[in-house]
């Protein structure tokens, strides 16, 4: 009995630091976000005025907020679709096929992931340059007129390209890890039955790494929300005229310039709920029977 008590005490002591830190730095601030969203408060004035759901009411009428949410959702969808498709195909090729310089490709694809966002935005600033940029030079070669890549019309597409380029390597490595665990015998018997490579990919590889794909989908949603803030801050600052503004950046700017702390926290609550809801929805929709091998 005594030793059991000792053991519990020991475990308690071991866990306590992490739990306390987690409570102070994660749980308490999150509750505070929800609480402050119901108040009117400026950053340097400690006076808080309770205004109920008025901040949320105003959010619904705020055209820039709606635009920034739309941009955020558009980025989540586009970046997820393109990154997942390319990463899966590359991972499939690099694990199943015998290519010369396989390791070289692995490293090349992964490099963008270890670069800082500021460096990436610098690289893409050169690629998107209107007169001397890589893309417009190629277009000019074919007699096409150059595109204003960071102009209002194309700015979201430009962000998607940069974000996909950055993310492919990371997800490719994750998919490769689970693909290499799929037994080779399954592919052998499939090819004896006459299944070609594409059929094998869709009938064997994808179903067997489904759990992994589901996990990465949640990653996609959370990381795109965060990465969009970084990419947009570094590449466009939300411009031109809010065409590339995203919800997190809008929240950050409203804290300083527009509606104050309370309003910014209300935006935070909406982002929190949307990302949570989206993750739950994706999780539910992609539910399948887990295949064992």
């Amino acid at each position, binding site marked *: 009995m005594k030793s059991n008590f000792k053991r519990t005490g020991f475990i308690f002591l071991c866990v306590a630091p992490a739990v306390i830190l987690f409570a102070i730095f994660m749980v308490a601030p999150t509750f505070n976000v929800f609480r402050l969203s119901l108040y009117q408060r400026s950053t*340097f004035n400690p006076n808080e005025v309770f205004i109920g759901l008025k901040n949320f009411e105003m959010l619904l009428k705020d055209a820039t907020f709606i635009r920034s949410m739309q941009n955020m959702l558009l980025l989540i969808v586009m970046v997820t679709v393109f990154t997942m498709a390319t990463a899966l195909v590359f991972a499939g090729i690099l694990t199943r096929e015998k290519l010369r310089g396989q390791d070289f490709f692995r490293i090349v694809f992964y490099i963008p992931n270890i670069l800082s966002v500021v460096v990436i935005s610098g690289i893409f600033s050169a690629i998107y340059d209107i007169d001397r940029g890589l893309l417009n030079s190629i277009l000019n070669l074919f007699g096409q007129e150059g595109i204003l890549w*960071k102009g209002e019309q194309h700015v979201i597409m430009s962000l998607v390209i940069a974000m996909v380029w950055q993310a492919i390597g990371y997800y490719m490595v994750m998919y490769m890890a689970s693909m290499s665990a799929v037994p080779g015998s399954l592919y052998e018997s499939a090819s004896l039955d006459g299944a070609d490579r594409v059929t094998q990919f869709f009938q064997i590889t994808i179903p067997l790494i489904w759990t992994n794909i589901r996990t990465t989908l949640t990653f996609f949603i959370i990381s795109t929300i965060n990465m969009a803030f970084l990419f947009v801050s570094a590449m466009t*600052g939300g411009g*031109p*005229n809010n065409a590339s503004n995203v919800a997190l950046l809008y929240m950050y700017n409203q804290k300083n310039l*527009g509606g104050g702390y309370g*309003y910014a926290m209300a935006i935070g609550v909406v982002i929190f709920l949307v990302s949570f809801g989206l993750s739950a929805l994706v999780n539910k929709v992609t539910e399948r029977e887990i295949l064992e091998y």
Partner: protein
Amino acid sequence: MKKFFALLLALCMVLSLCACGAKEEAPAPAAAPAEKAEEAAEPVTIKVAAIETAYGSQVWVDVAAAFEAETGIKVELTTDKNLEDVLTGPMQNGEFPDVVHLATGRPAGLTEQLVKANALHDLTNTLSLTIPGEDVKVADKIAGGFTDNNIVAPYGDGKTYMAPMFYSPCGLFYNAKLFEDKGWEVPTTWDEMWELGETAKAEGIALFTYPTAGYYDAFMFALMNAIGGPEFFNAITTYEEGAWDSENGKTLLNILDKLASYTHPSTPAQANNQDFTKNQQMPMNGSALFMPNGTWITGEMADYAATLDNFAWGMTAVPAAGTAPYSFCWFEQAWIPAAAEHIAEAEQFVAFLYSDAAAKIFASAGAMQPILGIADMLEGENVMFYSIYDNGAKAAMGGFAAFGEIPGVDVSGTFFAPIDSLVAGTITIDDYAELVKTNSALMAAAKLS
């Protein structure tokens, strides 16, 4: 070996913590008065925070040292390029510096937030202090117009809450050599401007470009004055009802619309913090003629200018459109937080910023204090730039009146950012007029004075 690495890592952590906490201490003054003061009483230490801009941080170290030598009051100096990030946390916890040098109009808007929160100390009395080491009063030394505009006196009650600091005439910058070669005259009215626009267009040169839409602030303020004088400027910047519908308002919209059509089409796509220098290169390399900017541009683009053969900076005021050519006078501000610990000593420091000794130190880095007789300290291209007011241009000063928090509405997003869309053709001038009128009404309702 493992232990060694563990130790090394631990050491790195401790060092990085120390580095975070380190502050720039001003070197101890060598002069005698400080020692005398120390004997009399425990010297007070004031905390001074200054933004590090193109002028560097050494000027602040030198000024702090000179102040210590003069008064015996010790200075704990913090300078940082992102001063807002350094100050926001402690200030939210109630730890305020005694003096802050940080201009309005920056993206983080820290100074504006304090104006909104009524958290600035009233400096009206400071203006009547005698400058330490001199027998002149502060107010007698500051040039006219700098202490009674709506930037430093944001509540319209005649009280000054910010001390005007380094000023810079803003205007339209161009390549003087290009004008010389082509035999073009620099326009002084908007009619001449449009004429030049057509001439340049025929040669494949755009009339206008801008670094980012935010640069429209100084340009638009000068333009408002050039259209209807200070009355019209005040009507727009205090959100008077009907100001945008008046004759002058229509002229303003008309010029903005026409100018957008003469703006280089690549401009909005490069009008962000990463690519704005590409826009600034346009007037230099002959892709465009004019851009609105300030005197700091010469330092900012010095490297690029060195690569050009046929280039010399020229600067002109915003052409007249009813009154006279105007040049907006942009200046930075220093202020004392209302919650500062050592108000009296902080006021001494602010007063000292206008001493000849301090002005000389600032001028050595190109930072010009708005004090009488500063013209004697000018050098190089600055002589030409700062003489703009002697050559027929009138000075415009001030900005949009302060207003409380309005969710989703701010000055830059209302008046300047939509210019990007106007140039790109995604909105019309009527959309722009609608937006500024709607938001002006909201700002008028939330005005602080």
